[in-house]
């Protein structure tokens, strides 16, 4: 979701009973009437705009008056796509996005799974405490969580700057080539920027993975794991031979969801970079936004970038929906 409250699309408190006989014998038109407002909203606010980005990407749109419909839209054909696809900067942005998403999905999955396994093995009280803390990180809004990380990495009074300053000067100089860290711009170099962004994203997303993996683990028959332990299997072995194969569907969905989320990171990046000026650290989502809305506005070109992002995500979504449909009759 845009707000990154990481919602699971699949939250049903109990498995819904198959629709039973209802008080109206033949359903008639009533269900369609009940569904209508929802369908209208979804069509108007999600599906129609989805089609509109494709349309807009085929035009030369560069003023608000065109957007308002007060001036005509010059047809551009595929010129917007030609422009971005041949632009080395776009290729760099695409590479950044893909690499960033892969790294973050991998790190989030590994850390989340480890924490899930840990929570499963901790004593009851300890598990409740750690679980509560982990939930807190999950619940924190992306915006304020990121602002706080930005404060932690503040170049003069931030905690990290202070910690690095506290290192013995000789050691610090030998390791990093500098001993005075005051004023060091943690967000200036793309590599260090992306590392901090990764830290923020992983911090924010691992709880969801951990809690989901934990829920999966709880559903497994404990006899299986015990039998494996009796047979002398270590934790590594029993994870890969028992837990992982049994929870494969859960892991599948988690990887797909994380991929989708990490491909469209916006808020965290916008806040860490302090707006849309930091071009070397652009990824698709913010690049599209900046192209469309930073003066001079180029809505058509921005839409083309958004289309590329959407196509990538729709492919991943296709995989997701297929997995879900295989597992659950709706």
């Amino acid at each position, binding site marked *: 979701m845009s707000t990154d409250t990481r919602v699971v699309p699949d*939250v049903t408190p109990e498995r819904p009973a198959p629709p039973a006989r209802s008080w*109206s014998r033949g359903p008639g038109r009533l269900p369609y009437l009940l569904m209508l407002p929802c369908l209208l909203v979804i069509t108007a606010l999600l*599906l129609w705009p*989805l089609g509109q980005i494709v349309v807009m990407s085929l035009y030369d749109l560069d003023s608000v008056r065109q957007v308002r419909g007060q001036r005509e839209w010059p047809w551009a054909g595929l010129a917007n796509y030609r422009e971005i696809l041949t632009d080395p900067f776009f290729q760099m942005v695409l590479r950044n996005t893909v690499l960033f998403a892969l790294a973050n999905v991998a790190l989030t999955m590994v850390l989340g799974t480890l924490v899930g396994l*840990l929570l499963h093995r901790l004593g009851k009280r300890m598990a409740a405490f*750690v679980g509560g803390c982990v939930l*807190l990180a999950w619940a924190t809004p992306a915006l*304020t969580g990121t602002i706080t990380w930005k404060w932690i990495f503040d170049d003069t009074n931030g905690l990290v700057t202070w910690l690095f300053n506290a290192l013995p000067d000789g050691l610090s100089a030998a390791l990093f080539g500098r001993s005075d860290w005051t004023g060091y711009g943690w967000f200036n170099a793309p590599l260090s920027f992306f590392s901090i962004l990764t830290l923020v994203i992983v911090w924010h997303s691992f709880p969801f993975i951990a809690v989901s993996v934990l829920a999966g683990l709880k559903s497994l028959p404990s006899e299986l794991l015990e039998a494996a332990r009796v047979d002398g299997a270590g934790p590594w072995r029993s994870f890969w031979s028992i837990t992982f194969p049994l929870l494969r569907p859960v892991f599948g969905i988690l990887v797909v969801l994380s991929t989708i989320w990490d491909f469209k990171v916006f808020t965290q990046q916008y806040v860490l970079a302090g707006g849309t000026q930091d071009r070397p650290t652009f990824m698709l989502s913010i690049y599209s936004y900046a192209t469309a809305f930073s003066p001079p506005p180029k809505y058509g070109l921005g839409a083309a970038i958004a289309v590329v992002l959407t196509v990538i995500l729709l492919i991943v979504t296709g995989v997701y*929906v297929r997995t879900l449909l295989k597992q659950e009759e709706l």
Partner: protein
Amino acid sequence: MKRSALNLAGLLVAAFAVFPVVWMVATSFKTTPEIFSGGPVPFPRHPTLAHYRAILSGDLIPGVSFLDFFRNSVVVAFCTVVISGVIALLAATAVSRFRFRLRTTFLVLLLVVQMIPLEALVIPLFLMIQRLGLYDTLGSLVLTYVGFSLPFAVWMLRGFVAAVPVELEEAAAIDGASRLQIYRRILFPLVAPGLVATSIFSFIVAWNELIFALTFLNDQSRYTLPVAMTFFFGRDDTAWGPVMAASTLLTLPVLIFFLIVQRRMVGGLSAGALKG
């Protein structure tokens, strides 16, 4: 592995997870000299409300009180919750009480639209808002957030509706209750807890959202809390005390609500992903 090693690992995870939140709240209560002393003070030695007073009173940024942004955020979130709750309840009743031809299609549609990258929709929605004349109104946000929260709300509510025994409604129908009465007197009260849980998710969506609010609002007086935070604090990062106080105010309701509904989220995921 030894129990103590596991516990230690648990504590480390807990510390990593909770640290930024603690640091945010702690900083918001520190005096300015403590914040800028050059050495971190883990907890405020002389807890002060000065930063909260500064952002709420309008002394910090002349004429600007965060109470206004708070009010805007509350209005937007409240309208979103109510509208999307009503529409979701109707749709959830449709899919969990009736079998009809387009039912499965509708459910698949709900799933698929949740995967649409909303960030990509900002340009076409900007166009739509401009044409509807809703640019720079809170209504533009309500409209957008209803769209964003609805698919998930329906998806979540359908389980709650299905959990209400149909027999109750049938009994009422036999006793001569009209459909509207059945809806109001039987289904609605029994689904109410589910509706609360669903509302909380819609609330969080509306409360946290930044990009669309950033794009659709122009006049400062209409800013929601997230926009105000990036606007007033984004450029000049020195006033960390007030920034952390505002962050705490924005975060607190979300934390409380989230903790109320988290069980449903976790249970729901395993139910969806494992059964079948």
